[in-house]
């Protein structure tokens, strides 16, 4: 038994070494691809949440333990310049932190949101990323499918468009959202929860309300700095 301890240690160490060596190579191969994917995801998310806006540089403000990231953007509309903002909202959902990029116009109305990171349960909370295809199965197999224009936005994200982020956002349980519900929900400033994943829905809603408050604070502070600099 005694003589087997160094041997076991050696074998375990060797296994770990070989595994680490192999993985470091795999990591080196996949890292640039993953980074590129993530950068592209960030850019397309910004484009999605601030449609038509020219996005300025990324800014961050301290918030709690981490940092609060936000962007200011502008769009020329006739003679006036409209301002827009995007920020990253985050809050713990059911299976980990949910990160959402939120775009708002100068009045606080949400232009669009995009879920950046989530680890919710597949089939339940993870349905926040699920887009309902406009084609039915029979149309696809019989070849009558409508052309696959750009991927439809997931309904969960779509329903946030036009919601006032500065006010309280309500949650209603009406099942999957569809276009015909928009008017009624807009009146209540409400979103429909994902069936079986109310915690997920609430986390996104809360993170947006919190993020909006942080955005206002960060903008005020930034304006304060600029004023001081001007003096």
């Amino acid at each position, binding site marked *: 038994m005694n003589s*087997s301890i160094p*041997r*076991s240690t050696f*074998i*375990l160490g060797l*296994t*770990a070494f070989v*595994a680490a060596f*192999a*993985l470091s190579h*795999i*990591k080196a191969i*996949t890292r640039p*691809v*993953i980074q590129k*994917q993530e950068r592209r*995801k960030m850019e397309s998310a910004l484009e999605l949440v601030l449609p038509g806006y020219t996005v300025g540089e990324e800014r961050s403000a301290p918030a709690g333990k981490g940092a609060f990231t936000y962007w200011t953007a502008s769009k020329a509309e006739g003679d006036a310049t409209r301002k827009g903002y995007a920020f990253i909202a985050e809050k713990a959902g059911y*299976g*980990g932190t949910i990160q959402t990029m939120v775009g708002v116009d100068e009045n606080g109305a949400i232009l669009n949101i995009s879920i950046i990171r*989530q*680890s*919710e*349960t*597949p*089939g*339940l909370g*993870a349905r926040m*990323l699920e887009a*309902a*295809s406009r*084609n*039915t*199965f*029979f*149309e*696809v197999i019989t070849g009558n499918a409508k052309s696959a224009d750009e991927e439809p936005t997931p309904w969960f994200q779509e329903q946030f468009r036009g919601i006032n982020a500065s006010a309280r956002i309500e949650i209603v349980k009406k*099942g999957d959202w569809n276009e015909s519900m928009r008017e009624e929900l807009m009146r209540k400033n409400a979103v429909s929860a994902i*069936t*079986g994943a109310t915690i997920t829905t609430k986390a996104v809603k809360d993170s947006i309300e919190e993020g909006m408050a942080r955005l206002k604070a960060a903008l005020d502070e930034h304006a304060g700095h600029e004023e001081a600099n001007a003096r």
Partner: protein
Amino acid sequence: MNLYREFVKGIWEKNPILILGIGMCPTLAVSTSISNALWMALAATFVLIFSNIFVSLVKSAVPSHIRIPIFIAIIATFVIIVELTLKAFQPDIYKSLGIFIPLIVVNCIILGRAEEFASKNTVLPSMLDGLGMGLGFGLTLTVLAFFREILGSNRLFGYTLIPGMEPATIMTLAPGAFFTLAMMLWGMNALKSRKRR
């Protein structure tokens, strides 16, 4: 040793989910849609085949009292390879499977086959055992997902079946998986007992 038998036993006779009753956690969790089920089956089969190959290669060099950590290290290595590859080349699938990719490490089918088969057999039968078990796992998962996706989301392969119909949400939740699994077990046992008679 009959290689063909080692390969096909995982599909029916020793089906990991329906007969051996292992690997239930990913089965219940990712069988909500066919595309999730297929990708999960592919990932798990890849890990199964390669962990079986490597376990059978190193089996004589590994002292029996430290075999479990060694097996886990081998399995974890291949799981991370799958995870990084999916993250780089199939980010959408990676997003929708989420936590269940890293959880393949503790999938009892994989450790179970390493312990029960690969550590006692040579490379070729171990590889075939892994492939067969992976296929058995994948087929069961796909059949399960077929019924759950149709009844639970009114979809097939992500496409709506009957526009405007409200699906039975319970089928996408855990009880729906148990119901469907029980039905499949029932069907399988009925077939088996008929054969015996």
